[in-house]
């Protein structure tokens, strides 16, 4: 409407003033007005955020997880916190405070050698979350690089597909175990072992997405205009993939935490001096047979379950929200 008001005015003036000089000027292009017609109020991220907000459970869990992560960092600086690795000696008896049931002093009790379970759980959560996030980020970086080459380059498609068929057929558990077996135990070993197996799925997933996108018209247009391949990948394809990448990341975190539990269980995890959720569960498992000490297994299990479920639900809610089909 805005564009034509002037013309309409002109025409109506024409009848009054007959012809005037103004009508014979050349029309100029107004950039701002030209944009106006092509402008839509739709913003991908705003719509994604809006649909995500509709899922009340996911929003609650997201706030909860952020709070939890903050808490694991704040916890050591709160007053009256105990060291996660120090063995506490009972002042009266001079003995270690072994297997003390939860009380005022030890909120979650102590473990079998007298360490404070409360601070160990938070230390462990921090370690496990660190492993989870590190694995997720590395997997995404490797997965995206390989996936982009695999999906975008037609020359590399066949060799990488063949490579994938080989790598994918090796049972993941075995690679995980072998890597942890060959390397020395430690956080970096665990992260490396998980990334070696984890990137494969990520690369395949991203490759499939890229294959769908690469022949769209706008990419063809970029190509004919002479845009180099890496620019097409980073500027044209990556923004499209951000949502799926974030989904995969949020699912990779609980998976990595679970894999850590598994590696610890078979004796290839972190040393006991570095508490992690896997370590704590494993410690608790040993004492499972005596019902009084089961709290040592149950507390870490609850924390672990809550964290993994929260990540899973948030990831799925985000994937639903990021899907343009679900946008209004």
């Amino acid at each position, binding site marked *: 409407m805005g564009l034509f008001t002037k013309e309409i005015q002109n025409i109506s003036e024409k009848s009054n003033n007959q012809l005037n000089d103004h009508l014979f000027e050349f029309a100029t292009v107004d950039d701002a007005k030209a944009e106006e017609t092509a402008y839509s109020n739709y913003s991908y991220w705003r719509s994604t955020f809006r649909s995500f907000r509709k899922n009340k459970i996911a929003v609650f869990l997201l706030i909860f997880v952020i709070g939890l992560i903050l808490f694991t960092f704040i916890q050591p600086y709160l007053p009256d916190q105990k060291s996660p690795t120090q063995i506490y000696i009972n002042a009266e008896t001079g003995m270690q405070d072994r297997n003390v049931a939860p009380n005022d002093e030890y909120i979650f009790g102590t473990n079998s050698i007298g360490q404070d379970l409360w601070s160990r759980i938070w230390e462990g959560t921090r370690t496990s979350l660190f492993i989870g996030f590190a694995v997720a980020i590395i997997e995404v970086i490797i997965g995206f690089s390989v996936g982009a080459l695999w999906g975008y380059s037609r020359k590399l498609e066949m060799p990488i597909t063949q490579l994938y068929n080989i790598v994918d*057929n090796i049972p993941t558990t075995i690679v995980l175990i072998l890597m942890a077996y060959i390397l020395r135990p430690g956080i970096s070993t665990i992260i490396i072992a998980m990334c070696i197996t984890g990137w494969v799925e990520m690369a395949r997933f991203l490759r499939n997405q890229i294959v769908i996108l690469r022949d769209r018209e706008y990419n063809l247009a970029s190509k004919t205009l002479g845009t180099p391949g890496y620019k097409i990948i980073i500027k044209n394809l990556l923004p499209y993939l951000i949502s799926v990448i974030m989904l995969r990341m949020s699912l990779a975190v609980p998976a990595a935490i*679970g894999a850590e539990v598994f590696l610890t269980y078979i004796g290839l995890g972190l040393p006991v001096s570095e508490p992690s959720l896997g370590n704590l569960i494993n410690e608790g498992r040993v004492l499972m047979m005596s019902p009084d000490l089961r709290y040592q297994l149950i507390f870490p299990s609850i924390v672990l379950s809550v964290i*993994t*479920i929260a*990540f899973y639900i948030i990831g799925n809610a985000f994937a639903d929200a990021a899907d343009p089909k679900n946008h209004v």
Partner: protein
Amino acid sequence: MIKYIAKRLGQSILTLFIIVTIVFSLLRLMPDEGYLGAAAEKMSLEQQEVYLTNLGLRDPLLIQLKNFYIGLFQGDLGKSVTYRTDVPVLDIIQDKMMYSIVFGLGAVALSLLVGVPLGIFMAQFKGRWLDRLGTGYIVFVVAVPAMVYFLMIQMYISDWFNLPMLFDEYNPKSFILPLFCLALGPIASYAMWMRRYMVDELNKDYIKLARAKGVTERTIMFSHVMRNAFIPMAQYLPATILFTITGSIYIESLFSIPGMGGLLVDAIQRQDNNVVQGLVLVFSSLGIIGLILGDILMAIVDPRIKLGKGDSVR
């Protein structure tokens, strides 16, 4: 069809060869103690060296590889070092395999019997309480590390139902808990896939047409939707069945079932390289056979698929 199968087989054998070679080379990186076993403490360094040389471990890698393959074709996977000293690896694996097969097949049967109907009902009552309950169960099983709920089951359910906590070959009641635990995961994944494919299928136009025509809901469900929804599952079925045969590492060691999964953990903890090698070979072969069978089964249930054209990535 036969040509396709032959081609797939050839490819798979090549893949298997590469995998085994990679694993073999990786295992050479491991510490030598894995070959010495308990004898290591009694031997001097020179004796150890002689022992290792006699085993052929000081030969160049390629020669070791050649010897390994020659042994493999003669059905010889080497001898166990620390696990059961000097017993051939193949015998150990054979002993253990029976347990894993019994539990694996039992669990698959159970999970198909429960998981597939669960998925169908969830799709049918989408958005109702059954669907929500099932989704909650699936989220829990998929997200939470299996270890946690296995331990809880072992701790509490064994108490409540008065079931034995550990496996005992001569007590049939002791089969219940491990089977139940083994089936939990597959039930969730079968139900999840079944539900997803069913819902996809239910939204298609031909179903609307069938409804408009007045076809009964039951006919639509069973002869249209289910049949089509089952096709994508067919591809993964053999792989999952074969994979359960390899045994669950968690369950076998938690319930002390003398199966193959537990064997892998044992062999790794005792650094018995030959046993680990043999097991990797068995596990990878089963995995690959599963994939081939899946492709063949898929071609059988889905007449639209023409084999041989375009080996796309799954």
